[in-house]
């Protein structure tokens, strides 16, 4: 079947199977930041924004995205560049595999709540798993970024 959607700001068309998952469609279209880390919808690695809302692309049919707008990290480099350096400065990433999911969900968090408390950050990012770190580095990085904005 054919689908039409807006991917990272560009209108595209694609041919899919009825059971193609959005994650696989996105990777076939060059969005390699979107990765699969689990089979149980539990790791957040595959997070993309669909109509501005963070969703798990591993658990959404590509067919559901027909007529919608999808953003992956490839399309949000600019917005991400504001804060990713602060996370890197904390050495929060070790293998870095979880990073795109964290960054995408942090973008969603900051759009919804530009000045979150630490508990609000923890709650929003609870669905992003990292097997290397203890999460404190990511939290400190986001906190430092928020503090830097306050001057």
């Amino acid at each position, binding site marked *: 079947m054919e689908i039409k959607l807006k991917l990272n700001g560009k209108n595209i068309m694609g041919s899919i*199977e009825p*059971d193609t*998952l959005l994650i696989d469609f996105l990777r076939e279209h060059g969005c390699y930041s979107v990765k699969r880390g689990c089979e149980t*919808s539990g790791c957040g690695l595959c*997070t993309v924004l669909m109509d501005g809302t963070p969703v*798990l692309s591993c658990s959404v049919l590509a067919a559901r995205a027909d007529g919608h707008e999808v953003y992956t990290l490839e399309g949000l480099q600019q917005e991400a560049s504001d804060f990713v350096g602060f996370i890197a400065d904390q050495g929060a990433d070790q293998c870095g595999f979880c990073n795109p999911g964290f960054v995408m969900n942090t973008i*969603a968090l900051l759009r919804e709540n530009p000045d979150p408390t630490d508990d609000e950050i923890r709650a929003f990012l609870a*669905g992003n798993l990292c097997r290397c770190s203890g999460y404190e580095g990511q939290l400190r990085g986001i906190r430092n970024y928020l503090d830097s904005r306050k001057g």
Partner: protein
Amino acid sequence: MITIQKYVRPQSLEEAYQLNQNRRSRIIAGMLWTKMSSGAVNTAIDLCDLGLDTIEETDKQFSIGAMVTLRQIEQHAGLNAYTGGKAAAAVKDIIGVQFRNIATVGGSIWGRFGFSDVLTLFLAMESFVELYKGGIIPLAQFASMPYDRDLLVRLIVKKTPGSFSYQAMRAQRTDFPVLTCAVSRLDGQYRAAIGARPGRAMLIKDEEGLLTGGINEESAKAFAEYAAGKVPTGSNLRGSAAYRTHLAKVLVERGALELGGNA
């Protein structure tokens, strides 16, 4: 993951219902649970075009479309004002924001999962389900019915004056709950919904009036003993039956004390 031959977005409930009469068809809501299963689906019936994704609030009730997400429940001002924030409290540990942006109320209630925070929460309220063919029936009745091929259209929650508490015991945040417990006072009547027993949530009403004289440590304990005595528990890898019965007593007692005040 299931395999799908054909994907359809019906434009009416009747179309969705007719398609669903074939036993190789499957309704697709958030698809999160369905994705965990295997098997061949002929027609995947995606309910996303039926306008069932809103919560309508009137003076008397909330009407929650089947495709409303758990995140909408968490963020709905009216529902959280009515429940004192317990609607949000009940769903906040279900995996993560991205998951709750997909998981639906319809899929959660239809599934009647033993571990369901969502079923436990709404059983403690005066809730009804609207089924396309089966009409409007109390949620407690629906919770004990076998699966059939009807469609869940919406969940209706009456704004009966009341107060609510919600607690779930999890070994770790975002894990499945070991026990769920919602206690409520509705028009002066007390009830406790207990789920993750690990079977489907059950509703226990204070038929002996243990709390009607007022809630204090003694009456809360008595109601907790009564409720825990009525709820069969079982063992699985998350906890033993004895542990769950113990948790039921502790959580019902705490829940009742949290409601506080007099009838």
